[in-house]
């Protein structure tokens, strides 16, 4: 199967505020209020970013009491890595074949 580039994830990461949110979520789930504190953008803006991140699959959310907590979607993040992984598999496989096919030589051409 073709490993598609996780465009939505890439897009979602293409914003400083959203990357700051990702940084904060690395240590565990956070509420909107916790994420908002010190971010330097309005709370509605944080919510908007979170909504986009959720749509992209970058985060998931769940209600705890009256608050909504967000956490990183590690499965989706892994797709980004898998895409690059696949890319290098192809290139390195060809590299190996070329290196073994060409006669070893002492000096560069």
């Amino acid at each position, binding site marked *: 199967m073709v490993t598609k*580039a996780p*465009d939505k994830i890439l897009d979602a*990461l293409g914003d400083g505020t959203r990357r700051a949110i990702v940084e904060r979520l690395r240590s565990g789930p956070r509420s909107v209020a916790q994420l908002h504190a010190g971010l330097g953008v309005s709370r509605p803006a944080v919510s908007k970013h979170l909504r986009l991140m959720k749509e992209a699959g970058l985060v998931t959310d769940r209600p705890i009491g009256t608050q909504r907590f967000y956490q990183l979607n590690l499965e989706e993040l892994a797709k980004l890595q898998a895409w690059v992984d696949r890319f290098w598999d192809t290139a*390195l496989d060809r590299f190996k074949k070329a*290196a073994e096919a*060409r006669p070893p030589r002492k000096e*560069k*051409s």
Partner: protein
Amino acid sequence: MMETTVAPVRKQIDISCTPEHAFATFTDGINDWWPLAVHSIGGTDATRAVIEARSGGRIYEVSSAGDESLWGTVLECDPPNRLVFSWHPGTDPSTPTEVEIRFEATDAGTRVELEHRNWDRLGARAASTRESYDSGWVGVLAAYERAVA
């Protein structure tokens, strides 16, 4: 918890040749192996790739019209042991990811280890270069995988 947002991609292959030959093939011999038609910005219009194997050297592809498209810049060049380069094919060079290739002599030849890292930086350019990704590497990679599947 994850230690980084996106972990480095690590690859390892064993090749039955000397590190010198492996290093030379990787750099000077890139056109012998790099699947240019599908792993390039220009796709079928790309005619060759170049790795200038020296610190500060450029890594780029050349189109049939002679236009050059930069893929990255060599950050460290220590033949035949190590090659580190920034990597931003078709994207904003101000926020590159980074690739390190290590060549280590083994009894059977050479172990080549690849690490592609600094993915957090990718995010900084992801949105603005979405189109490049779509029309460039991603599209050609997908086409290639369909071709060889």
